[in-house]
């Protein structure tokens, strides 16, 4: 056993509140390594994992087959048509990009805000971010129609003297999502390095070699930790504006247009709030499942953690509700009959059901969490978190679908999703779950080094003398 095993992350988040991870008893550093690494190291993959993987991998294959058919036939296999030129693909794109945001919020913003409870879920949430962005990036890529010309979206020098239109919000998307993916992967991997080293030091044979390569030569010396923590802080600083910028740019896909119901100045912050909301919904869903399927992580993902996630769901849900109210009011206040019609049509038109699903799931369901009892009830939280994502998917649907009645009543047309629309959505879930299951199996799902850093014994002043105090602080 080398010196990588018992890495303590001594100064990361030197805040005050009792670490969530330690509230169920008080695991030693070794317990943390053994529990989390044990999940990755065990040879007998549980049966449920194979079943779940089989299903999601099949769905992913289904997605690939559909993509092949799409390239062969053209995007006419979807329900997109004039006037609803953007159907499910853009809905799914925005939905998946949004999911990713919670991961970055947890890993970057909550880090800067010294929220130590994040250590038990940040690895998990960041992995979710990366997989969600992969699912998101798929949809615009396959929606371009002439897929062989997809590289035109990148500013590559070429003989045709053709450059992307940098004034197009869709081009901004390419850069925003590309930046986001790069930063998220770097941040995630930086956090993983000490944990790979722990796995390396516990492993034998070829596994040790593989983990050794992944650990990038980590030895856990003071100097390495010093650099590591500065790098982590800087990456958190870099990732923080990305939480806001990416979904703001996504919102400009709609808001820079002159389409009523889309062109609204509140769109950037409104989309960001919605993204964090849906992302927290997804983290909650996945964390409750992981907790049920991997009993050892229960000591880390405690009810206190879920209590706090429920509060963030409630907060961001109300931010989204604020945007709905202000948009509706301003539509009336604008005095513009087209603007007014869009909103009345959303709430009372042919797609009213999706509007009210959106409203109920996003604004009313999170109100449950005023009650502490419900915040700490995993079944309630599980159902609510799924409803949140149903609501957020419908929010994007409501926005996109309001194209179905534009300025000219003669060109009004209903949007009807085809089986392929549903199939692509299901396939993207398959891809997401496949990647996530692989993550659960092969990567330590809780950031071991960070959890150790917030255990009481990691505090050099923990034993009373020279007490920096406040173990009981926070709330």
């Amino acid at each position, binding site marked *: 056993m080398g010196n990588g095993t018992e890495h303590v992350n001594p*100064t990361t988040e*030197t*805040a*005050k*509140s009792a670490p969530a991870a330690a509230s169920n008893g008080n695991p030693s550093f070794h317990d943390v390594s053994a529990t989390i690494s044990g999940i990755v190291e065990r040879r007998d993959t549980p049966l449920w994992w194979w079943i779940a993987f089989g299903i999601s991998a099949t769905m992913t294959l289904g997605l690939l087959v559909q993509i092949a058919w799409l390239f062969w036939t053209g995007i006419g296999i979807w329900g997109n048509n004039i006037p609803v030129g953007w159907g499910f693909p853009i809905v799914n794109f925005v939905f998946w990009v949004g999911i990713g945001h919670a991961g970055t919020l947890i890993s970057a913003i909550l880090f*800067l805000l*010294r929220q130590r409870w994040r250590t038990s879920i940040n690895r998990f949430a960041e992995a979710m971010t990366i997989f969600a962005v992969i699912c998101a990036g798929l949809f615009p890529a396959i929606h371009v129609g002439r897929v062989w010309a997809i590289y035109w979206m990148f500013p590559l020098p070429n003989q045709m003297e053709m450059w992307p239109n940098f004034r197009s*919000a869709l081009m901004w998307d390419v850069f925003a999502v590309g930046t986001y993916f790069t930063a998220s992967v770097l941040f995630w991997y930086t956090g993983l390095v000490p944990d790979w080293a722990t796995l390396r030091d516990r492993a034998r044979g070829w596994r040790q070699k593989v983990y050794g390569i992944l650990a990038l030569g980590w030895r856990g010396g003071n100097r390495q930790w010093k650099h590591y923590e500065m790098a982590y802080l800087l990456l958190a600083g870099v990732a923080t*504006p990305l939480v*806001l910028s990416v979904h*703001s740019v996504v919102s*400009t896909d709609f*808001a*820079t*247009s*002159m389409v009523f119901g889309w*062109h*609204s*100045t*509140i*769109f*950037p*912050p409104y989309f960001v709030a919605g993204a964090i909301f849906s992302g927290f919904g997804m983290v909650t869903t996945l964390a409750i499942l992981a907790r049920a399927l991997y009993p050892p992580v229960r000591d880390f993902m405690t009810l206190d953690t879920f209590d706090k996630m429920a509060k963030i769901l409630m907060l961001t849900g*109300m931010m989204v509700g*604020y*945007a709905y*109210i*202000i*948009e509706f009011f*301003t539509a*009336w*206040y*604008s*005095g*513009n009959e087209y603007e007014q019609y869009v909103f009345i049509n959303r709430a009372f038109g042919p797609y009213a059901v999706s509007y009210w699903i959106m409203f109920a799931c996003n604004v009313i369901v999170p109100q449950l969490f*005023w009650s502490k009892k419900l915040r700490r009830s995993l079944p309630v939280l599980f159902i609510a978190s799924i409803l949140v994502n149903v609501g957020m998917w419908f929010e994007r649907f409501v926005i996109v679908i309001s194209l179905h009645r534009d300025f000219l009543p003669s060109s009004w047309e209903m949007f009807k999703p085809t089986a392929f629309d549903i199939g692509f959505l299901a396939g993207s879930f398959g891809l997401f779950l496949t990647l996530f299951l692989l993550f659960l199996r092969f990567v330590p799902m809780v950031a071991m080094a960070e959890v150790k850093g917030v255990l009481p014994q990691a505090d050099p002043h923990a034993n009373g003398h020279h007490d*920096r*105090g*406040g173990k*009981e*602080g*926070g*709330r």
Partner: protein
Amino acid sequence: MQFDSQTHRFTDPGPFARIMLLAGIAGLALSAVGYFVDARQFFFSWLVAFTFWTTIGLGGLFITMVHHLTGATWSVVVRRIGEALMCALPWMALFAIPVLLGIGVLYEWTDPEAVAGSEMLSRKAGYLNIPFFVIRTVFYFAVWILLARLLAMKSLAQDAGWDDKRAHSLLTVSGPGMIAFALTVTFAAFDWLMSLQPLWYSTIYGLWFFGGAATSVMAMFAVTVSAIQAKGALTDVITPEHRHDIGKLMFAFLVFWGYMHLSQYLLIWYANLPEETAFYKMRWGAGWTAMSWILVAGGFVVPFILLMARGPKRGRSTLAAFAIWLLLMHWVDLYWNIMPALHEQTVILSWMDLTTMAGVGGFFLFFFWRWLTRHPLIPVTDPKLAASIRLVSG
């Protein structure tokens, strides 16, 4: 000025309150003269001064509720500053009266002929009419004063002896209080400022208004901390760590505010609809371009770059200097939003801009300082106090 570090009170609050009171009285008297010189200028200047100080009071209310809702530890030692700021709000209600009296001068939509002559304005008459406007303003202040009083009374009652139930009741007030705050502040921004150009609308306007309030209140925290420490009070209680946190939040809200401005501008510029671009057209060209640039560069770009570093946020005088600069920029921001409705062609600074700021601000600071010095400067019984003092933030 004397500070007793046992009771955490000023035994002699010093001449600051008296000076502010005199400045307030002088400012009001001169502004009253201004009313007879140029009533239009008076009302617009008044509106700038009134919104400037009201937003700072609102920021105090916001930060106090956030403190309770998040259960923060670091802010315990500076919590009283926010409470003192929000307790000046009842006096701001008094200063709303000139706005209501000047409603016919300030707002085009109060003119029945203009409304009758404009299809758009008559559509908005259900919201933009004098009685409803007055009722709303009274309602906003009623909500804010109620919240401020509840939170302040309970907080002060804790000084006699900590009660966990009472601490919890601060939380139960702050939860619904925050919802009420978000909606009232948004509609106050719509009413007082956005309706100055009644045909123009922007859904983000309430968030922009809030962003300015939040940045300025952190600036007021920084200035106050610097001022009381200069008098030898709380020098070992409020540490560079707390200043660093205040500075970080000030920076974060500054970015939030800039983000709101950018979102509004970018989307309106891009869509290029005449009904929306009218707002920026008034602020661009002729005499307003320079002020727009001052707002962009001085209000955001320069402080953004300089405040990113760690040093300026931790130093007492550097943090205070940035804070005063950002308060000045908050005034520029409000002026830039309000005054084009009066001086369409160019920026015409008036002596009344100064006297109204002194008049309203003198009283605001008088009441703020009086509240702060009459009560212990820190919540002495708070169980998190010790942990807050020993904060290490890095």
